[in-house]
């Protein structure tokens, strides 16, 4: 009981001291969704914020090969080659994130959207090494996309450094599934209002929408025919399907219900704009 008083009194004096973080105008969103309309592209960096925030992933379209110093492991030596975003090497990243107040969530395109492999050339160069000392790809920490571990005898250090310095030793191939910033957005509320006018849906004080399922089905399909622009997609039935899937059904009472949170959504109907990230692609002779 006394614990609650401590918390309560701390809260009371807190409220005056704490400046409120600005909150998005919209109500609670069901999940973290990307707001493609606010995509920022600059010098091989692509930033896509989450809805209502300045936080989100930063992707890079250009990478540079950066080897570490040499570690001595007995008589062997080890170098790790990192693929670093060129924007970081060129010192463009820090000004970019500061200029736009970007909170980078440190998302890597690997392994979800692609992979790295050693080049055939580096594998050939070190093919004489024992099996557990062969060139191996390692997972890396953001912003490094991936790393290559190289073990070699001390006599080979100059050759390996020279090799790394003059050509790619890693092949990176990733495709991040982004959407066009101009992807249309489905306004759920506009459709709900149109159906309310048609007498199909009612809205409660708490913002919950309900109606008979069959009436909803019939009138909403008619709406795709009379006012297709409400469903924003080229074939309005695609937008219609996404809209209908927001409802919860009571199969017995044959009623459909949409929560207040879902009803306030503005859903992206994605026009794909995949982000291709490549490094070290071997040129076929």
């Amino acid at each position, binding site marked *: 009981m006394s614990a609650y008083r401590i918390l309560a009194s701390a809260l009371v004096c807190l409220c005056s001291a704490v400046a409120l973080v600005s909150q998005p105008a919209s109500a609670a969103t069901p999940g973290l969704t990307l707001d493609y309309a606010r995509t920022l592209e600059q010098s091989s960096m692509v930033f896509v914020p989450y809805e209502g925030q300045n936080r989100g992933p930063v992707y890079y379209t250009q990478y540079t090969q950066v080897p570490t110093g040499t570690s001595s492991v007995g008589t062997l030596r080890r170098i790790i080659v990192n693929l670093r975003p060129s924007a970081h090497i060129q010192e463009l990243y820090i000004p970019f994130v500061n200029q736009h107040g970007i909170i980078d969530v440190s998302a890597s395109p690997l392994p979800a959207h692609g992979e790295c492999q050693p080049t055939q050339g580096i594998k050939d160069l070190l093919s004489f090494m024992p099996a557990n000392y062969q060139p191996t790809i390692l997972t890396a920490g953001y912003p490094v996309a991936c790393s290559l571990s190289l073990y070699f005898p001390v006599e080979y250090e100059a050759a390996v450094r020279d090799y790394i310095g003059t050509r790619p030793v890693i092949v990176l191939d990733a495709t991040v599934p982004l959407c066009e910033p101009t992807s249309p957005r489905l306004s759920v509320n506009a459709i709900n209002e149109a159906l309310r006018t048609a007498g199909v849906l009612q809205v409660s004080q708490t913002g919950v929408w309900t109606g*008979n*399922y069959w009436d909803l089905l019939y009138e909403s399909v008619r709406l795709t025919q009379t006012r297709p622009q409400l469903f924003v997609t080229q074939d309005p039935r695609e937008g219609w399907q996404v809209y209908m899937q927001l409802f919860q059904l009571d*199969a017995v009472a044959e009623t459909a219900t949409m929560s207040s949170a879902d009803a306030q959504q503005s859903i992206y109907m994605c026009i794909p704009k995949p982000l291709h990230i490549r490094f070290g692609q071997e040129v076929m002779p």
Partner: protein
Amino acid sequence: MVLVMTGCQDARRPDDTRAKALRTCVLAGLPPPTAPGAAWTVPGHALVEAYQRCLESPDTASAEDFHALCQDLARPSSDDPSRVHITDAPGGEP
């Protein structure tokens, strides 16, 4: 007397006939089930469009009429509100 009785029966039949004919036409206009024995579901809009195509004239289309059609033809799918289960109930006599 026999003739009079037949006349009374004729007066009732058009509603049943129309309902049955509409039902048969709509069922024929729907995409078939994906596999034999699998539950027959179709996109909701396919049901409405089949209904619209099967009407004699667009003026007769109404939500109530569609509702009546669906009573013994389909039921909602709780997993996906954009699709309906077709209940191929034989007869459908009220």
